[in-house]
């Protein structure tokens, strides 16, 4: 089991030369998306859909997922699948718990990063030096990390003030910032319930009011990643290890070194995601990550292995996460939103002359809209499945737009290139 997976079913389509979409296109797309959401809000009367409270909650929920996604991006761009993200996040939450309650949140965050990087390093040793299958190593790390943290938690937290066998004593939160003035003006506009304008105000207010410094740190890391991986020689070499390691090697790139760097960085970012999760909920708890590492992985795939895409995917997952806490009406409106999104996808696919896919997307989209029309509420238990269903739908209906790093999941041994 050296190289992962079978090639069957993977469509080897030659991608048409893509025009590089300008930032303007993405901006317009975002505006269009907000228009649709706004329309849905007006149609369903679910004001929560775009309220600043929802947006703020979505942002808080999205940050750990986004960092896990970014972690996956670093690793996979260097050609190593990191399914151990979940385990590394667990290490991060524990690090934050252990150091956070004693020396403050920033020490906790730092400890989370270091512990996460340690998890990444183990993954690197197994996959790069020993050529172990990436999935297996990742699964092993995800198996071992909760055991290790629970073992240590029982030792260190049981007798600590406010701690327990499975939870740390409370951690202080880091400072939050608000852009003064802007918040209240936007709040007034939001109250007016105008079509689109109020929605935009709600969105902006949610993004500028009471934002944790850690959220800002995450934003900075996204820009830093985009810069380092796509605008520096280091990034080019790192990505070349994920595309064609033998070619990179022949040009004098030390592939092992770059992979080690990428995976350790990946672990550090996942650890940071875990630490932020712990700090935001004021303590470490056993099982706190709740599969966010996997959702992060999904958001990375969803985002086509690009930082902007990862952020968008994480935002979407954070949004559905926040919706669950916002009452039945909002969740119900989500169905209509999902239906419309699928119909849009169907049109896109139709233009690309993929009739079967377009047909399937239409059918599922219509089913969602019917579900919306024929019911008054969605069982809350099912909402937690939404991010996963969306990922599956995206993977199955829009997979040809995805561009996976070429050498992903395969082992590379030094000096084996023909």
């Amino acid at each position, binding site marked *: 089991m050296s190289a992962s997976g079978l090639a069957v*079913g993977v469509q080897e389509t030659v991608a048409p030369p893509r025009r590089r979409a300008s930032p303007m296109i993405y901006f317009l797309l975002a505006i269009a998306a907000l228009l649709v959401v706004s329309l849905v809000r007006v149609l369903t009367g679910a004001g929560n859909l775009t309220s600043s409270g929802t947006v703020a909650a979505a942002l808080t929920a999205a940050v750990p997922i986004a960092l896990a996604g970014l972690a996956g991006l670093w690793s996979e761009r260097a050609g190593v699948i990191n399914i151990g993200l979940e385990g590394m996040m667990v290490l991060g939450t524990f690090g934050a718990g252990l150091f956070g309650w004693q020396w403050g949140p920033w020490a906790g965050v730092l400890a989370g990063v270091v512990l996460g990087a340690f998890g990444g390093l183990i993954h690197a040793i*197994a996959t790069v030096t020993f050529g172990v299958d990436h999935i297996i190593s990742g699964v092993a790390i995800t198996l071992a990390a909760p055991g290790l943290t*629970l073992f240590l938690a029982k*030792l260190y937290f049981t007798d600590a003030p406010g701690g327990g066998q499975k939870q740390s004593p409370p951690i202080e939160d880091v400072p939050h910032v608000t852009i003064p003035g802007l918040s209240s003006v936007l709040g007034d506009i939001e109250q007016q319930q105008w079509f689109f304008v109020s929605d935009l105000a709600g969105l902006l207010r949610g993004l500028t009011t009471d934002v944790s410094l850690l959220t800002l740190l995450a934003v900075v890391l996204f820009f830093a990643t985009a810069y380092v991986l796509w605008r520096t020689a280091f990034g080019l070499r790192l990505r070349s290890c994920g595309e064609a390691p033998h070619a990179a090697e022949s040009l004098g790139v030390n592939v092992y070194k770059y992979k080690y760097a990428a995976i350790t960085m990946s672990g550090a970012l996942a650890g940071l995601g875990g630490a932020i999760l712990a700090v935001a909920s004021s303590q470490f708890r056993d099982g706190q990550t709740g599969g966010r590492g996997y959702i992060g*992985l*999904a958001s990375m795939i969803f985002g086509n292995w690009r930082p902007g895409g990862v952020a968008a995917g994480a935002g979407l997952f954070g949004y559905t996460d926040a919706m669950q806490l916002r009452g039945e009406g909002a969740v119900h409106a989500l169905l209509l939103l999902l239906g419309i999104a699928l119909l849009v996808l169907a049109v896109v696919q139709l233009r690309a002359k993929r009739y079967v896919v377009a047909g399937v997307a239409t059918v599922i989209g219509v089913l969602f809209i019917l579900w919306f029309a024929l019911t008054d509420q969605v*069982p809350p238990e099912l909402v937690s499945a939404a991010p996963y*269903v969306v990922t599956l739908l995206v993977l199955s*209906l829009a997979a040809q737009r995805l561009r996976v790093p070429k050498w992903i999941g395969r082992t590379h041994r030094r000096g084996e290139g023909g």
Partner: protein
Amino acid sequence: MGRISWRSVGLGLAAPVGALVFALLVCGIILSITGHPPFDVAEDMIGSLERPRTVANSLNSATTYYLSAVAVAIGFKMRLFNIGVDGQYRLAAMLAAALAGASFMESLPSVVRILMTILAAMLVGAVWSGIAGFLKITRGVSEVISTIMLNAIATALVAFLLNPDRLAVTVAGSNNIGTAPITEGGQVPGIPYSESSSDVFGLIVLAAVVGVAYWFMLNRTRFGFDLKATGQSESAAVASGVNVKKMVLASMLLSGAVAGLVGMPQLLGASHSYSLDFPAGLGFTGIAIALLGRNHPIGMAFAAFLWGALDQTSNVLDLSGVPKEIVVIMQGVIVLSVVIAYELVRRYKLRLEQRDVGRALGTTKTPEEAQA
């Protein structure tokens, strides 16, 4: 069958034994650092194995783990990663429990009831894994990702169905909820074990049957041959006329069907109802055991028992103030070090073979000579 070469046996055992020793070492160090004498801990754990109850419980855990490992191994044999065994067995156990507990089942003879329950579980497991198989062959969606997603969706579905408005009833005298309890006719009686207060699962027989069937399928059928061939070289399998798409779907369905069985020993032998505290995460244990046992029917049986014994003997540790999660750490270290050990042994074997070939040809070239 050639004669047994001691070298290959030795090399075969070197990896698991080496990994085990390494894991013991790591755990020993962790225990020493945290101020627990490792030998005392080991003595406590081994000592608890003398109690028949611990052995019976270890066998019971091993039964479940073994089924899970076989489900994973079927995929592994053709390099399919069915990470979704976890979701498959939970959904299957839940729906099968609802069926077995339904009142119309009361009138049926016991054998029919049990068979129907087991078949239903296999069917549900197969359907759930079949989605991943279908998406792989039609849309090229990686089964790793799709099964992870399906695990989470299964969790949501189970939570949705396990609701007093739907398939669940509240368990009397607690705030636990579960499916309607299975009455005696639908249960599988346990096998008494010496003086143990808990019986060994009757369905341990099922695990044995599955193990034999797995061995037979791999070594005595065309399907098994194709399965292994596809796993070893997809292109060679295609060249020899294997329809890989069909194989992917078939092995995913088969893996899911076996995954459906994972919850059965517990359900029909002990719990008699699928409730909130039904064991979870067994699918991931299966992955670990399949790796440790190298997908071999007997190797996995040993690995499953080792895992079960580790789990059960660790219960004694909480009494002496050692967190029993040391066992989970040990299991994690075993998994990781065993795959590394197998890789090292494989490289070593390759070197030995190269040397043998060189010797047989009469000359052993040094690398420098070979390059000249």
